[in-house]
């Protein structure tokens, strides 16, 4: 299949062709890729594309999959409305 038509990250609309273009320019780690292309930075926080990105890095750079660092996970694990956070806090007080 044409890498241009393989969607890796649905949230940020990143294709396999985009990833390969970045690999060719020398961006090699998940942390670098996500900062240039926002891959894995959308609402799902790489829950969908994370493994695929790791896999593609592994394939392109001939690096064993278990040695490809996963991206830095940060809170929150799911989106919550700011207002709901405020209301929850108000209820506690």
């Amino acid at each position, binding site marked *: 299949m044409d890498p241009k038509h393989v969607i890796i990250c649905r949230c940020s609309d990143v294709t396999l062709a985009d990833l390969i273009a970045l690999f060719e320019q020398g961006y090699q780690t998940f*942390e670098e890729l996500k*900062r240039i292309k*926002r891959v894995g930075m959308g609402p799902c926080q790489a829950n969908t594309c994370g493994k695929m990105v790791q896999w593609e890095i592994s394939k392109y750079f001939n690096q064993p999959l278990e040695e490809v660092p996963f991206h830095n996970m940060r*809170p929150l694990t799911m*989106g919550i*409305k*700011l*207002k709901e*956070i*405020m209301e929850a806090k108000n209820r506690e007080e």
Partner: protein
Amino acid sequence: MKNKADYVIIGGGISGCAIAYHLADFGAKNIVVIEKEYLTSGATGRCGAGIRQQWGAKMNCLLAKKSVEFFEKAQEILAYDGDIEFKQEGYLIVGSDQEEDMVFKTNVALQNALGIPAKRLTKEEAKQIVPYLNIDNVYSATFCPTDGHLNPFTTTDAYYKAAKRLGVTFYTYTEVKDIVVKDSVIQKVVTTRGDIETGVVINAAGGWSKAIGQMVGIDIPVYSENHEILVTEPVEKMQGPMVISFSKNIYCQQTPHGAFIMGRSDPDMPEGLDVSSSHQFLDAMAKTVTELLPPVGELRVIRQWGGLYNMSPDHQPIISGTKKLPGFYMACGFSGHGFMLAPMTGVLLAELILGKAPTMPMEELSLERFDGKQVITKEKSVV
């Protein structure tokens, strides 16, 4: 790895990359940038990337203004193949009381005198600019239409690529462990991947700049502290300018990509290198933003993180050499606003290193300005 260089820059944030680019652009050769992780892994990739000229201290105003002039043309000057996403829709600074309004008056007078097109607004005028602003607890505001926002990753990438084309060498995932000095002459930089002989070292290590100074026995009067920030899901455009308030302790911006980023400071934050996230920040941020900008409260937070402000005694940067050690230069102490100043950081330090006439006087940016002196003008317009 190279074992010799004419210039070694420590730090691959916006400052290190801008300094590398301007040095190379002035014709300097054999420049190496060393970054312990990846480019933008420090404060640069964690920042709000707001671009503001409305400052209370003269040097900050001047540096920011001249930097904006560069950013307006950066895409072309740096011949970047990506998009630095410069959005110039202003900063709306809102104040809470008459006292703050008096400060606004003084600041705007200074800004106008320096050619910055800021103006004072009534709260009703502020509401015209951001219609959903809750003005119940707002007294007055100021606005500068040429302030804005950039994408910190692609802006750094633009400097990086331009510098690389001019021959600069970048070593990422390489840490500087020591700097060897003999008889007040810099000999070499010791890294995790080998030594580099050099006579010139540039400390652009952000939150870690004090430790780099210690390697050569220079005490830089800076400290670091964690500042937290969050981002929401991307939504259709709803807010043009950055909304910021010093008294309400908030800044909140919608990026061109659609996500909102916002932050506030914790006055009790201890000094140190910790960058962890806290639920206390999330609670306080949610409350502050929902009160001031109610519709933003409807958005989902998707991520929060922390980053380091590197604080100087007067909250203005240190862009300087030092008489104590020729060949040692520094760009640090940006006190939470070093992203927006990067073009001038790069130009001024490159001029100083290469012995060129400075674009603007630099005494008030020197390390020596703190020697045994009281801090006279301290920047107070900070979140």
